[in-house]
């Protein structure tokens, strides 16, 4: 069972990423803060006695449900979906950016000295590209790679199959690579 100190450490560790996840999804700081606050409260009230190692998956499941609830309440959701549906593609994109991108540290913007301005611009472009992803792709990408959940945990948090997680993650990564390459960012 997670002690109060363990739960506190977990929430402190995850709260900023949770906020950013919510912002990417709902594009509103106040709404994102409300979502994170509700998710924290729900985790503590309902699952505060669960083992420490179960908290990440449980919290992410609560957070993603809260984001989806927000979508349901918001009428702007449909506009978001339709404007981005073209990015989903059918998996037959002949020019796969990941096939041509070089990933050496030498061209990693954060591995070589760059100005703070360049770093801020890069961050903005990455965040913008993430915001423009279809919701399920973004969700899978962030849970799998940013939160570090494994495929089974990601599937449990998203309420889908492991195969769907792999598909969403793969499409998200390729879409992000294409979007960033079009802005002149080479990962």
């Amino acid at each position, binding site marked *: 069972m997670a002690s109060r100190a363990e739960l506190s450490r977990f*929430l402190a560790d995850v709260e900023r990423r949770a906020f950013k996840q919510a912002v990417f999804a709902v594009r509103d700081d106040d709404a994102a803060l409300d979502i994170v606050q509700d998710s*924290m409260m729900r985790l503590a009230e309902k699952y*505060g006695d669960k083992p420490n190692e179960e908290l990440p998956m449980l919290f992410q499941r609560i957070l993603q449900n809260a984001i989806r609830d927000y979508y349901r309440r918001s009428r702007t959701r449909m506009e978001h979906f339709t404007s981005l549906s073209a990015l989903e593609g059918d998996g037959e994109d002949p020019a796969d950016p990941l096939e041509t991108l070089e990933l050496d540290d030498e061209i990693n913007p954060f591995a070589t000295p760059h100005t703070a301005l360049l770093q801020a611009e890069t961050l903005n472009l990455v965040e913008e590209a993430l915001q423009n992803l279809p919701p399920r792709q973004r969700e899978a990408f962030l849970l799998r790679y940013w939160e570090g959940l494994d495929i089974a945990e990601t599937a449990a948090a998203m309420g889908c199959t492991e195969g769907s997680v792999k598909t969403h993650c793969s499409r998200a990564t390729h879409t992000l690579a294409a979007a960033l390459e079009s802005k002149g960012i080479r*990962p």
Partner: protein
Amino acid sequence: MSREEQFARQLCRVLDRGTVELDHGITERLRAARERALQHQHVTLVSPAIVGAGGTALMGSDDDRHPLRTGLAILALLLGVSLSYYWNGFSQASENEAIDSALLADDLPPNAYLDKGFQAWLEKDSPAGQ
């Protein structure tokens, strides 16, 4: 690590920077939200009096209840009661055995205690009877 995963990890390192540079107002609201949540942490209460009899499983939260655990707890409780009953009977038998041994080893034959005349003689001759 695949090229796809490598690229994803690079992007996440960029995203980490974004969490460091959050406004103070937002980080303060997150901290306040965290503290409010901690005040409402659900904690499973366990009665120490029955922990030894497997009470942990019986008194756990709804999510913790499991037929096997509950069954084991009840079995442990019954076993404890049985052992206690057996032990009490054993102690009583030992005491009776000691009394019997004392009676049989005494110079006075046991039948004397059944003789009403002997009882009357004891009451007559004892200091309390005088």
